């Protein structure tokens, strides 16, 4: 039996997203609870604010993906006024969004999820971070990563007015357009982004796919769940981040439902547990069956992997190649192995970069016609985009002055709360035997949820973009026997 | 507050005999301040019978010197009474006067509350507020600006003339501006003046001539002020000198042009519509200056393009049809406004029938009727120009003391009515009725005059006239004007038939008083009279330093009062001139230009044009001499870049905290 480690009462207060693991009398996992400790209450305090401020206020839900909230809120605001922005405005928004995707996916792969692979899951804690990565892969690559993030944010600033929390998107379109000089600059950066994306995929192939133990890890059962998948697709069922219909496929990859954003409430419901501040969305038509996977459970996942799983391919040539390679390597659709999400993310990175160049070379991109004046009486509107971490839904009701009277937000990570709870539980169960625990093992437990790139800042509209984690292990009497804390 | 150097504060609680001590436990207040406010730097707290007495003041001076006080709070009466007293005392003891605060515990506590406990409690709060405020006070120095010795007097009535002469005689230059062709104002239209009945012209004309010929007076008639810039001691004034269409330097005032002018015009101004003048005219024989003006609207040449009779006959070739208005710029140090009044338009009281019933006259009309130089050469006759009235009714308070028109008393109407009664009686022997609400004969020799008119047999009916009508009910009323009135002494309704009714109309502010006020940066009361700086203690000064108001522009008054005010204002002006420079209250707003973002929010805040935006540096600047210290821009600045001396944010916030005991909580918190 593992010896007891008493916990300093103070650490008890450290509620940063905890995984509570309870062991049975054999020291095996009895149950795990993934808890989210906070709530900022955006749904409450957006009430009373004017609709045009939603893109600015909900920005502050998450500073890692403010662009996603900015876009969802802007689209919802358009809908509230039943106003259709000029084509150029939409192009600009989507261009901004693609550039953001490149930055965000880069950040996650190199700074957050990447270290596990690049450094190896059991590598010393001190090295398991971006600086460690840079030291290992070399400053030259580190420079590239920084360059990619810089370019992405430069575009966001050029179009959106600010690097973080952009401000130029308003009901009916944008406050301003871009000049030809800016367009040229953005195009150059886009072309560089494509190279960078390709380079990253190559790096992934070498470091991860080239390393048998990692491949086994990915393909192994530990990180596998057969759930439903959700993502937004365009009219050709190709992956799209900014617009389209929401498509859900079942664990066998068969289309379960495809709905227009405005109908989201008919298809999604959120389950409540009293031991966490976060809700568990599920497919309404199937219902909440608890933390179980399979066709009979309403649990679904919305991540880069899901988006690939629900789509018939990528809308750009190079990404399409990688898409095919992806499924060829992993044995066809859908892919249930969560760790493959990292790979899927890089494929999306490439698509985003290619799409970036498509958009910026559109002849209408520099048109000054970027705003349509709203004339309809504002009422109610829904806006959906694909946030990097899953389908993001903003829904607002307003009075006749366009002041918000009610709101509903279902954000990226929330979609994945149930799967994350399940994945960590499964990982813990299969990795912790007879109470034997090492930090490496625990990191591998974390890898289970890190694959989702969870953003509980978004999820709870409360916590930071990435989430520190505390793992407490309790014995049969519920006494904590081991506490390990870690930050992703 | 903690990191600030500790001030040494003295608190002095005044008994004011029993005025304060009767309702407030002054001893308790003093002891409380000494103990509870010690942490704030109160080193001494005394109470004394009369702080304002010389002994009381010495007490403070002594403590400043011996205890090294850096701040003083006097809990006594309103600062409006003794702020200066205690500031002076502090100054004597070498403490900057602006480091003294008064806490009003008499007007605002002891005199208005009865419960001693409550009053004492409130006094403590007021003292606590004053103490925390005074700590935030900063030493201030008065601002000195040079005074231009020239003076502008606007309005050539008796008040203006008086002002001009006083200053000119003292040896300083005056610009006297009059909008009519001649100076003289209303007084020049009167026949006799009450109560002495001496001839108005006889006493006024010499003054007019003196003003017209005085070497120190530049007379600008037929002229109006169009712009005023600058501030006390340094006003820049623009005057529009309207074209007279004759060369003043050539005109001898012989009057031939007026004789020869073929165009007769009803004289609405001087003759009150009872007489005629020519298109080229001097308003009256003794006009100053005595050269005429040409009335463009009525001159045949200007209308038809032919005539030029005046030009033909002018012996000196002074006529100049090409003459244009000319703008004159002058610099002056002080300004006196003597813009006078308009007569209440009796037409507005329709039930008195003026304008409808021919034999109802206004007071000004009667003045002309009774004036030997007037249209009837002084014969008091009906509108037909020949019939002498047998019975005359004089109605007082026309348009005055009347909710429907003006609430105020026009002051002069009663005496005017009595004067009319006397003149009618004297010249026609007619029976005269005076209808009055109250008989107001204040001032020297006024009531004697009333007695005299009584003795002459004038009949007095106390009551507000309801109606003047020509609708006869009885034979004796036929062809007469019937005055319907409730005789409040007899307590019955009366109908009194008369041949002539004289309305003793009230006075009202000039129709353009508001615009004139704006031009000179002064305000008007709701009645429309110019607002004085203090209704009792400073009746001729205004809120704008260097601008004074005299005569009826400030409110209805008789000739002696107007003259007195004219002289009073001159004395104030001379005082300033002789000081050579003027000290301005150092309560001013200033802009920290480092912090000013040039947003221009404050630019519309100042009615005194003290705020200027510097385009080149994109910042705002405040002219301390123009700033009146109201603090509106301070409160307006969104960047907190404007601060106001004397009433700074820090001072007011500190006082709020003190009044709400916050300063004590701080102390207790520290103590814990």
């Amino acid at each position, binding site marked *: 039996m593992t010896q007891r480690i008493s916990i300093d009462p103070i650490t008890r207060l450290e509620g940063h997203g905890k995984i509570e693991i309870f062991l049975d009398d054999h020291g095996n996992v009895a149950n795990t609870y993934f808890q989210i400790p906070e709530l900022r209450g955006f749904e409450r305090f957006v009430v009373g604010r004017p609709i045009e401020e939603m893109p600015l206020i909900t920005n502050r839900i998450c500073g890692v993906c403010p662009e996603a909230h900015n876009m969802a809120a802007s689209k919802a605001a358009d809908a509230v006024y039943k106003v259709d922005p000029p084509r150029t405005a939409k192009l600009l928004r989507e261009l901004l969004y693609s550039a953001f995707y490149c930055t965000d996916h880069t950040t996650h792969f190199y700074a957050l999820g990447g270290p596990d692979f690049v450094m190896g899951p059991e590598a010393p804690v001190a090295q398991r971070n971006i600086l460690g990565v840079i030291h290992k892969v070399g400053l030259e690559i580190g420079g590239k990563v920084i360059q990619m993030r810089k370019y992405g944010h430069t575009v966001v600033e050029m179009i959106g007015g600010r690097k973080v929390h952009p401000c130029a998107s308003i009901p009916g379109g944008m406050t301003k357009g871009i000049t030809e000089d800016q367009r040229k600059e953005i195009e150059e950066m886009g072309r560089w982004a494509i190279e960078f994306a390709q380079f990253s995929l190559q790096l992934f192939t070498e470091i991860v796919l080239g390393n048998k133990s990692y491949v086994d890890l990915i393909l192994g059962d530990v990180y596998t769940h057969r759930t439903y998948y959700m993502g937004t697709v365009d009219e050709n069922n190709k992956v799209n981040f900014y617009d389209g219909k929401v498509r859900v496929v079942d664990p066998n990859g068969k289309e379960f439902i495809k709905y227009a954003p405005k109908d989201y409430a008919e298809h999604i419901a959120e389950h409540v547990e009293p*031991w966490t501040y976060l809700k568990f969305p599920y497919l309404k038509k199937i219902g909440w069956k608890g933390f179980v996977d399979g066709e009979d459970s309403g649990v679904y996942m919305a991540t880069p992997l899901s988006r690939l799983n629900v789509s018939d391919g990528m809308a750009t040539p190079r990404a399409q190649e990688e898409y095919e390679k992806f499924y060829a390597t992993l044995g066809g659709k859908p892919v249930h192995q969560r760790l493959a999400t990292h790979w899927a993310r890089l494929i999306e990175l490439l698509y985003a970069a290619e799409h970036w160049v498509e958009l910026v070379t559109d002849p209408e991109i520099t048109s000054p016609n970027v705003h349509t004046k709203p004339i309809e009486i504002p009422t109610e509107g829904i806006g959906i985009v694909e946030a990097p971490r899953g389908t993001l839904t903003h829904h607002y009701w307003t009075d006749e002055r366009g002041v918000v009277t009610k709101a509903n937000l279902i954000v990226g990570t929330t979609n994945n709360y149930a799967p994350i709870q399940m994945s960590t539980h499964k990982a813990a169960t299969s990795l912790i035997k007879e109470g034997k625990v090492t930090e490496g093992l625990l990191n591998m437990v974390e890898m289970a949820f890190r694959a989702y790139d969870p953003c509980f800042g978004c999820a709870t509209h409360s916590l930071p973009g990435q989430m520190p984690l505390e793992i407490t292990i309790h014995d049969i009497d519920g006494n904590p026997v081991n506490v390990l804390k870690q930050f992703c | 507050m903690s990191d600030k150097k500790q001030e040494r504060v003295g608190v002095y609680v005044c008994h004011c005999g029993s005025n304060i001590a009767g309702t407030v436990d002054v001893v308790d207040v003093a002891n409380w301040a000494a103990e509870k406010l010690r942490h704030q730097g109160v080193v001494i707290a005394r109470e004394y019978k009369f702080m304002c007495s010389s002994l009381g003041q010495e007490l403070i001076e002594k403590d400043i010197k011996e205890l090294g006080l850096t701040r003083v709070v006097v809990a006594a009466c309103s600062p409006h009474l003794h702020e200066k007293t205690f500031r002076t005392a502090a100054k004597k003891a070498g403490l900057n006067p602006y480091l003294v605060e008064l806490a009003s515990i008499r007007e605002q506590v002891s005199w208005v509350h009865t419960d001693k406990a409550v009053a004492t409690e409130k006094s403590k709060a007021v003292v606590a507020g004053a103490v925390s405020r005074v700590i935030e006070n900063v030493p201030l120095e008065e601002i000195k600006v040079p005074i231009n010795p020239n003076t502008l007097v606007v309005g050539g009535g008796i008040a203006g003339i008086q002002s001009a002469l006083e200053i000119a005689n003292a040896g300083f230059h005056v610009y006297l501006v009059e909008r009519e062709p001649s100076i003289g104002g209303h007084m020049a239209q009167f026949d006799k003046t009450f109560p002495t009945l001496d001839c108005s012209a006889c006493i006024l004309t010499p003054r007019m001539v003196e003003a017209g010929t005085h070497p120190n007076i530049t007379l600008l008639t037929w002229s109006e002020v169009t712009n005023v810039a600058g501030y006390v001691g340094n006003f820049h004034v623009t005057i529009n000198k309207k074209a007279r269409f004759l060369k003043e330097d050539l005109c001898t005032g012989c009057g031939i042009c007026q004789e020869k002018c073929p165009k007769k015009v009803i004289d609405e101004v001087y003759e009150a519509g009872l007489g005629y003048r020519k298109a080229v005219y001097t308003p009256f024989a003794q006009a100053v200056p005595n050269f005429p003006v040409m009335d463009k609207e009525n001159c045949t040449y200007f209308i038809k393009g032919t005539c030029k009779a005046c030009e033909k006959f002018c012996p000196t070739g002074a006529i100049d049809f090409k003459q244009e208005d000319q703008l004159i710029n002058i610099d002056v140090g002080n300004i006196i406004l003597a813009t006078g009044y308009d007569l209440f338009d009796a037409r507005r009281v329709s039930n008195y029938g003026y304008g409808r019933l021919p034999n109802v006259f206004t007071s000004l009309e009667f003045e002309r009727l009774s004036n030997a130089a007037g249209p009837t050469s002084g014969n008091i006759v009906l509108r037909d120009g020949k019939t002498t009235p047998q019975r005359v009714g004089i109605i007082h308070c026309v348009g005055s003391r009347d909710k429907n028109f003006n609430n105020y008393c026009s002051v002069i109407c009663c005496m005017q009515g009595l004067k009319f009664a006397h003149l009618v009686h004297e010249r026609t022997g007619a029976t005269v009725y005076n209808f009055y609400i109250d008989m107001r004969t204040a001032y020297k020799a006024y009531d004697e005059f009333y007695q005299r008119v009584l003795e002459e047999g004038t009949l007095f009916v106390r009551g507000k006239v309801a109606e003047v009508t020509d609708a006869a009910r009885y034979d004796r009323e036929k062809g007469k004007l019937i005055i319907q009135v409730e005789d409040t002494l007899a307590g019955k309704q009366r109908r009194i038939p008369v041949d002539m009714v004289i309305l003793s109309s009230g006075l009202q502010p000039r129709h353009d008083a508001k615009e004139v006020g704006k031009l000179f940066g002064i305000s008007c009361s709701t009645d429309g009279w110019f607002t004085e700086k203090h209704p009792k203690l400073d009746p001729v000064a205004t809120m704008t330093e260097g601008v004074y108001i005299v005569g009826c522009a400030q409110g209805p008054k008789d000739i002696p009062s107007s003259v007195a005010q004219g002289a009073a204002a001159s004395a104030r002006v001379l005082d300033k001139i002789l000081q050579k420079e003027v000290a301005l209250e150092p309560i001013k707003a200033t802009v920290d230009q480092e912090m000013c973002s040039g947003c221009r929010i404050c630019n519309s805040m100042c009615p005194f044009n003290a705020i200027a935006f510097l385009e080149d540096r994109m910042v705002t600047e405040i002219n301390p001499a123009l700033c009146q210290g109201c603090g509106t821009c301070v409160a307006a600045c969104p960047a907190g870049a404007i601060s106001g001396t004397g009433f700074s944010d820090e001072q007011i916030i500190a006082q709020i905290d003190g009044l709400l005991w916050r300063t004590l909580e701080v102390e207790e918190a520290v103590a814990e």
Partner: protein
Amino acid sequence: MTTDVKPKFAMYWAASCGGCEIAVLNTHEKILDLDANFDVVFWPVAMDAKYKDVEAMEDGSILLTLFNGGIRNDENEHIAKLLRQKSKILVSFGSCACEGCIPGLANLSPVGEIVHTAFNTITTDNPNEIYPRTTFDVPEGELHIPTLSRILRPLDQVVDVDYYMPGCPPESHQIAAVIDLVIQVIHGEAQLPPKGTVIGVGNSTVCDECPRARNVKMIKAFKRIQDVAPVDPTLCILEQGVPCNGPATRSGCNARCPQAGAQCIGCYGPAEGVMDYGARLITAFSSVLDATTPEEIDRILDGIPDPVGQVYRFNLAGSLMKAAKPAWEQG
């Protein structure tokens, strides 16, 4: 302050969105300078670390801690106190820590209402009115989650703060400048500013950095951005009727939003020495009204649909009133 061993650096988030971290990462190459000059001991977004390590550190052993996020629950408060204890220099970093930021708007409602709203949205399946509980028994044992405070508080309402760096998030060029300064200080080439200084900002308000032309303002009607967009690119946005918070908002951001054709929403907080940001805006907006009768003034003011949000959007928790009456009373 020169030293052989590298001084320790920490960055932490309480109730924030992570934008501050991104802003720091957006200093790009500067991150490497940071790494070169500091021993980064604690920075959740970028690296693994343990609370117990922080607790183990000597008091004041961390030279510089950038603390972002407001204090929303007892756990935030605990970490704030812990880091205060361990840090020599504690910087209140970003709008949330300085003045509550957007999450501070929660102080308009009782915390109970906030929870209730979140767990009764149209998609929430909550027939039994289940709400999170700070302590909850599951078959295997007891679970805990932190306690929400009645109101969200800025950092300096909980612990003593050395410097303030406002902005939502602080502009990267300002962060870079501050990092440079600190590095110079370490090498003894510069002095630290006096305690309590607001750093990484301009000394005026946004208009100071705004290139738009300005005149004396006289506004007959307030307008909403979507009704006037695109605004005249050369003229003051407030003059065009859109309530722009620029005049009252601390400079330092290069007037980003006005330059992007949008009104300033005030994320940099009040100017130097200003006691209440909202009061400055009340006075700014009312000063430009071109009206004298109460009726006319009210008609114009109706053009601002959300007065309290307009003037306290980022600043409510840091304002004089801190929160609305219901939040104090029913919290």
